[in-house]
C-alpha cells in the first residue's frame, strides 16, 4: 500500500545536533525530548541493526507514527542507510508516516467481514467522515483505515475505533458510532 509522505509541522521549530552511535553527526529538526526518546529506544535494543523492526514498533508506539526525522536518527544509530529504514517503514502496513487521528477508525476488510458486507460499512464511514482510506480529518479527530482481520470474525463485520471493537456493524449503525466520539 502506498503512503503519503508528510513532514510534521513541529519538525521545523527546532534544530538540534545529534550524535549517532557511530560518532557521526547528523542534523535533524526535532524537539530535544523526541530525540532523546528515540535514542533511548535504540539503546534499549543495543543499536543492533537486526532489531530495526522492534525499534520501529517502539517508535510508532511512542510517537504514533514514524516521520522522516525519526527515521534519520534510527538509521544513524543502527549504522544503516536511511533508505533501508525508509524501505522497511514503507514495506510494512503497520508503520505509518502520517499521524493518525485522535480516534482512528479501522474497518476490517478481511474475508469474513467482506462477505458480510464490510464494503458498505466502509463506504458509509467514508461518506460520514468525508475521508478517503488513509486520511485524517483536518481537525485531527478522526482517521480512516482498513485492516485485514482482527480475529473476531464471528462478529463480522467488525470496526475498531482505537482499541474498542464494534461487532455486527451495519451501514445504518455507522452514524451512531461516530456520534459517540464527536462529543
Amino acid at each position, binding site marked *: *500500500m502506498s503512503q503519503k509522505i508528510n513532514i510534521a509541522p513541529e519538525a521545523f521549530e527546532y534544530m538540534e545536533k545529534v550524535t549517532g552511535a557511530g560518532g557521526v553527526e547528523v542534523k535533524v529538526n526535532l524537539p530535544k525530548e523526541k530525540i532523546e526518546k528515540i535514542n533511548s529506544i535504540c539503546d534499549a535494543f543495543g543499536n543492533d*541493526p*537486526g*532489531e*530495526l*523492526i*522492534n525499534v*520501529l*514498533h517502539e517508535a510508532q508506539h511512542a510517537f504514533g507514527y514514524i516521520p522522516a526525522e525519526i527515521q534519520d536518527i534510527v538509521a544513524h544509530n543502527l549504522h544503516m542507510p536511511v533508505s*533501508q529504514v525508509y*524501505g*522497511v517503514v514503507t*514495506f*510494512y*502496513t*503497520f*508503520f505509518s508516516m502520517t499521524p493518525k487521528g485522535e480516534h482512528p477508525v479501522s474497518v476490517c*476488510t*478481511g*474475508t*469474513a*467481514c*467482506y*462477505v*458480510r458486507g464490510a464494503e458498505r460499512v466502509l463506504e458509509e464511514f467514508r461518506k460520514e467522515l468525508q475521508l478517503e482510506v488513509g486520511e485524517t480529518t483536518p481537525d485531527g479527530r478522526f482517521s480512516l483505515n482498513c*485492516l*485485514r*482481520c*482482527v*480475529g*473476531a*470474525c*464471528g*462478529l*463480522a463485520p*467488525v470496526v475498531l475505533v482505537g482499541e474498542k*471493537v464494534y*461487532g455486527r456493524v451495519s451501514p445504518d449503525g455507522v452514524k451512531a458510532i461516530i456520534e459517540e466520539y464527536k462529543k
Partner: protein
Amino acid sequence: MSRYKIHLLVCGGTGCHSSESNLVYEMLRDELERKGLEKDVQVIRTGCFGFCEKGPILKILPDNTFYTQVKPSDAKEIIDEHIIKGRRVYRLLYTDPETEEHVPDSKQMDFYKKQLRIALRNCGTIDPENIDESIARDAYQALGKALTEYTPSETIDLIKRSGLRGRGGAGFPTGLKWEIAAKNNADRKYVVCNADEGDPGAFMDRSILEGDPHSVLEAMAICGYCIGATKGLIYIRAEYPLAIKRLKIAIAQAQEYGLLGEHILGADFSFDVTLRYGAGAFVCGEETALIHSMEGKRGEPSNKPPFPAQSGYLGKPTNVNNVETLANIPAIILKGAEWFSSIGTERSKGTKVFALAGKINNVGLIEVPMGITLREIIYEIGGGVKNGKKFKAVQTGGPSGGCLTEKHLDTPIDYESLTAAGSMMGSGGMIVLDEDDCMVSVAKFYLGFIVDESCGKCAPCRIGNKRLHETLGKITAGKGTQDDIEKLRNLGSVIKDASLCGLGQTSPNPVLSTLDNFMEEYLEHVHDKKCRSGRCRDLLYYVISKEDCIGCMACKRVCPTHAISGEKKEAHVINQDVCIKCGACMEKCQFDAISLMNDYPRVSATAAQTITES
C-alpha cells in the same frame, strides 16, 4: 483445580473478549465474593471455545452447562439461580436451531459431536495465564519423555511415523523436515514458529496461542532437542495483542519453572524462546520472507534452495513450523505415533483446525479428523447456511486457494483431495458463500488483497496480478468482453508458472477456480451485463413497474439524460442505454413504481431502437 467444587469457564478469546467477556468475568467474581462463594467456585478465563458466533461463552463444570451470549448483567442471575439454587438459566442455554430445544450439556451440541480436538485440546478448558493448569493437563510431560526416554533421532522417527504434515499450508511432512535440519551441521541452529497467520478470516493459530501457549513452547523445545538448536523464535503478528500478552506470560512462567532455559528438567539440554513481531505484511508468512523480516529487513522472499533448513535465520539452519503443527507434537509423543496415524485418511493423518466464517450459522473454530466431508462440516457442525439461504460455495485456503461447490460437498477432505478439486488446504480458513455472493466479485476481492500484499520483487506477480484485478474490475463494472475471460485464464497460468514465491504462484487460484466452477456467472456479467446476486452495483438497473406506474410523468421531468419515455397516464419505460443511474427518478416517484433490479425486461434490438427514437 480440585479444591473448588464448581468451575466457571469464561471465554477470553478475541471474539468473546470483543463482546465484553472480561466484564462478565469480573461481574461473576464480584457476585461470588458478595455471596461468600469464592472459595467453592472458581472463575477461569480460558481460550476460545470455538463457538465464537454466540459469544461471550460461559461453560460450567462439572455439569457441562453451556451458556451463550452472556452479558455482564446476567452474572447475578447465574450465581443466584444456577450456583446457589442449582437451576439452569434456560434463556441463556444454547438452543438447537432445528428442534428449537435448549441444549443443557455441551456434549450434546451438534457443534461439538463430530469434532476431535488434538491441537485445540486445552483451548477452553484451562486458564492460559496459569502454567499450573497446563501442567495439570500434562504440559511439558512430552518434553520430559523425549529428554529422558528417547534420543533425538528416535523422537524424529516417532514424528515421521505419525504421518504429521505441516499445517501452515504446504503440507510438508514434519518429521522429514526435522530430520533434514538435524543432519545439517552448524554451530548454531534455530527453531522458528510461524505465527504470522496472514489469511484474512482465519484465526486458528491465534486461538491456540491465546488458549494454550504452553503446547507451542513445549513443542519448540522438543524440536530444538531433535535438531540440536538452543534458540527458538516466534514470529507473531503485531495485530494479535492478546496472543502476544499470553505468550509473554507463558514464556516467563516456563522459565521460572525451569522448563525453558538452561539444563531443562536436569538434562543436558538448554533452550529458550523469544518473540519477534510482524508488522502487517501477508507475504511475511512465507518462510524465507519471514526470516528476512526477523533479521530486521524488508520481508521479501528469496529463491529456494537454499531452504531454511540449510541456510535460514542469520545464515544458520532453521526449522520453520506452523503453530498448529507444533501444537500436535506433545500429544503425538505422549499418545504415540500409531494413535495419531490411526486418525485421518491414507496420506493425511490426524486432524485439522478450520476457521468457519462467512454465511454460516456457527461461525467459529473447529477441529475435525481429516477425511470428514464438507457437508458434515457445513451442515452438521456449522449449522448450515445463515438465514436459510442457498449454499453456493466454500472458499478454502484463503487468497491462495479456490472454491468448492455443491458437487464437492461429499468429498472427504485431505491435502490431496482439496488440491485435486482445484483448491487447497491452506492454513484452514473456510469461508462459506451463499446465493447473495457474486463469484466474480469474490475473485476480485482476493485479487485486491494480493495486489496490496505483493512485495513487488518479481514482475509476474507485481504486474500480472494488477492486470488480473483490473480485468475483474472491468467485468464487474459491466464493461467486460469475451476476450477478457480468455485473458484471465492465460495471464493466470503465466503468473502461476513465473512467480518467485508461493504468494504469486498461487495468487491466480481464486480467479481460475471461479472460472472453472462458475463460468456462467462470468458469462452473464460479460454478455448479459447482469449480476445475479445483485452485488455488482454497476449491473443494477432502475426499472419501472408496469403495474405500479400511473403515468404521472414526474420521473420523466427530472431525468437528466432523457432516458425515460411514456405518455401521460401510461406506464413509463427507462432506456437502459441512456440511463446514468443517478437515482433521481426513484426519489421522485411517489408511487414506488421504480426499483433497483439486477435485471430489466430485455427487448429485441429493433424494439429498443423505437424506444430511443420516440
